């Protein structure tokens, strides 16, 4: 590949890198928002289930939190893929950097930089893989599973507590007391 071709390919890599980092920024914003909403909705449902003595609401909180977990896992899967892609693109530019810095002393760096550039599968969205359910059990999502799982378990325990523990009785004023207080 000649110098012009190499420059143009590197420009395209930089363009893809810019798209990828923009996607990562958006993905981080979405996951932060999803997690914020998950906690808020979960806490609100648990709170109302206790105050209104409605065990079904606590159970709904458990179902809701699991739904948020799936959305979070999906977004995290996209984020992880984007991060991997960004590092792959960084590696291509790093190899080009190595070729410029040390290629004169070790031709392998030039060969590797050319190979990395030529073999790059261009396109961020073309490199995205579909979400698979087994992704949920991948190592990097375990912390989400533990966090969301704990919240779901707490919600189920709350539902049982609301169901089992009797509602506290509020003392009502007796009719005799009110009549004796009259004229």
């Amino acid at each position, binding site marked *: 590949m000649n110098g012009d071709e190499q420059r143009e390919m590197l420009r395209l890599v930089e363009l893809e890198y810019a798209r990828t980092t923009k996607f990562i920024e958006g993905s981080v914003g979405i996951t932060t928002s999803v997690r914020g909403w998950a906690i808020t909705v979960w806490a609100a449902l648990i709170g109302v289930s206790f105050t209104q003595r409605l065990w079904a609401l606590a159970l709904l909180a458990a179902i809701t939190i699991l739904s948020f977990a799936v959305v979070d896992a999906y977004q995290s899967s996209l984020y992880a893929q984007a991060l991997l892609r960004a590092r792959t693109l960084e590696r291509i530019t790093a190899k080009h950097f190595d070729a410029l810095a040390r290629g004169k002393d070790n031709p392998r760096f030039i060969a590797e930089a050319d190979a990395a550039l030529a073999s790059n599968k261009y396109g961020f969205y073309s490199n995205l893989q579909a979400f698979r359910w087994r992704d949920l059990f991948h*190592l990097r999502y375990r912390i989400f599973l533990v966090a969301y799982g704990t919240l779901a378990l707490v919600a189920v325990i709350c539902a049982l507590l609301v169901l089992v523990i009797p509602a506290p009785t509020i003392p009502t004023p007796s009719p005799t007391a009110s009549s004796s207080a009259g004229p």
Partner: protein
Amino acid sequence: MTTSSAAPGGGSGSPIALSLFDRVSDYAEALETGTADIGKPLTDATPIVVFCQNFFAQLFQNVLNAPIRSIDARAKEQAATIRQQKSDDASAPLRRLLAVFEELCDEWQDVRGLSYVWYRHRALDEFHATLLPDLFEAITSWANAVDHQDLAQRSALAEAAYKKGLMALSARLAKA
């Protein structure tokens, strides 16, 4: 970095202890027998880590008289400075060796398992398949250029043993 010995070894006048290449043989054997897993980060006890750390510590101390005893960004900067100062044709094999060291400094974090787990596999793969064979070639080439035949011979033998170990590992993985 822990250096076993920075003194010239083997009584052959070699600036690098020749016994250090035994670590390469140990690692090659571990690859061949399957006791080493190239998918897992390397530790201080991994023979190839001991080799890399000590080889470059001895090279910098005994050949270049430079106080570089680590494999990190600072060491890379110092090595790059030395490489750029040695611009004569006779230093070309040494410059090649220093260029590999600089690459090793870049890869070291990944190789030692300090990067993202899902990215580490690629780095470890490149370290084993590309960087190490190139390192042995560069050592042999430099040793021949400075007329340390014993060192060149040991390096060539270590390279052959390592490649054999790597091939055995690939064959075993392909079978599995």
